[in-house]
């Protein structure tokens, strides 16, 4: 019973070990030369303009949340697609219902103006 978990245990050990190894090893090897540009937060290669702790428009949260919600639905769709052959028509209807409910929410959010970027 427990032996089934051995690969997982090995995986955990290897993963942590690798992370630790790289961190420790690189800190031992790298030269310590700091300058202003190097110490700045990394922002996709673009120079930071203001402090990171700033007010965001509430819209940002709205859009972000909507994005998460509609993005996560694909997570449900992957396993569904994998066993679609077994689920057949039942699976198709189930997924359509699921998407329909999401669509209602989407429609509601749209009509309420949640998607309008100011």
């Amino acid at each position, binding site marked *: 019973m427990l032996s089934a978990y051995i690969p997982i245990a090995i995986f955990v050990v290897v993963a942590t070990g690798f992370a630790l190894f790289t961190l420790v090893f690189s800190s031992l090897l790298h030269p310590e030369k700091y300058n202003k540009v190097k110490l700045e937060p990394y922002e996709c290669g673009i120079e930071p303009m203001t402090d990171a702790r700033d007010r965001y428009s509430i819209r940002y949260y709205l859009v972000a949340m909507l994005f998460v919600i509609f993005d996560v639905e694909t997570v449900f769709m992957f396993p569904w697609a994998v066993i679609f052959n077994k689920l057949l028509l*039942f699976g198709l209807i189930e997924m359509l219902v699921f998407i329909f*409910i999401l669509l*209602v929410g989407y*429609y*509601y959010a749209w009509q*309420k103006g949640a998607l309008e970027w100011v």
Partner: protein
Amino acid sequence: MPPGISTSDFYYILPELVLTGGALLVLIADVLLPRGSKALAWVTLLAIGATIASLVPFGSTHVEVAHGLLAVDQFALFFKIVFLGAAALTVLMSVRYLEIEGASPGEYYFLILCATLGMMIMAGGIDLLTIFIGLETMAVSFYILAGFIKPNQRSNEAAVKYFLLGAFSLGILLYGMSIMYGLSGTTNLRTMATAFVGQERDPRLVLAVILVVAGLGFKIAAVPFHMWAPDVYEGAPTPVTAFLSVGSKAASFAMLLRIFLEGLPSMSADWRLMFEVLAIVTMTIGNLAALTQTNIKRMLAYSSIAHAGYILIGVVAGTPRGVAAMLIYLLIYAFMQLGAFTIIIIMRRQDVVGDELKDFSGLHIRHPFAAFAMLLFMLSLGGIPPTAGFMGKFWLFGAAIDAGYVRLAVIGVLNSAISLYYYIRLVVFMYLKPQGAGSPVTTSPSLGIALAVAVIGTIFLGVYPRLLFDLAEMSARTLGVAAVTAAIR
């Protein structure tokens, strides 16, 4: 069709499906109807009505759905009726309140329906997963509802407090549940019950029981897990408070009964002891704290805590009779508590908040019927015959004595004697004080209906409780109570 699921399963969850459809319909109607239309409330009521109608075919059904995820039995049915009734009353009392508070009904009704859906799943769930999903559906809806009056700081505060503490308690509950799963290898309560036989002394299981008791204790607002309740009850919009104190509480009790009586009957010695202590502490602290409150919502919050203590007596008894008494009490409690909150909402006018004790001064002159109705609810909450509240208490205490817990009954009676003091104090304010200030007290048609239903329920169940008793006993018998009784003897 995948194995384990059949078309008939969908037939059995018809009420839940109807309610989901209704909720979606409300959401769409909100967009389509002109802004501020009162028709939305009626669409909501229609959805609730349709759900109640769809319960009809399941009057005597007793099946497990989808490999034991949900049970469709009379126990669940009883609770579903309580939830739907409470939701309908809440909708009725919300119309004018939202208008006065200047809140757009928008998601409000949708969330009420979602919360109701969650409750229904909680009552039917016989699997930790379904119960948990139901619980979350309900809880998340309530977090939002509690903060629905956005410009009101107290409402915001209530929502955040409820959310933070709710999440915290949920963590505790989930921890307990996960241990239960880990020890039994199943999430199904009925399978779990057999797996736990003979493991009564396993400390890990005891830990799980303690954690689940704590998590549920939070939901039903039992002392010492109650501290969120007064703040949230006071801050949340009044109809939400009403629904929270009735629906959420009833659903949590349903879930509690399912988990302990169906899933952990072998541990009954332990959880009985815990609930007994909780019941005593909860009743006593709740009543004593309520004694000196001057805000009616806060007073009712403490009173609601105390009532959770009374209802816990039924769990301690653990007999079919005890469970029946709980069901009876929860339904009766729904009527009187919702009625009392309806009056508070009636007192809410443009110029008066109306939830302070002094606002009720001389109400019998300003609005005799409202005063009489409130008198009735207070007497009922205090357990004075011939109101329904007395019947409920009588049955609970009777069940306790019947199961050999005479001390619980004694403490219960003592507590209800104490509690009468603060209930009657409100009556004194209404009948024996000069008139309070503010514009005239009026009712709207929907408030009138809600009030009438609550009054009739409070009187009718007090005068003619037979029907309810029969129903409750029938429902209680479908729960796995027999197992507990067997394990004890």
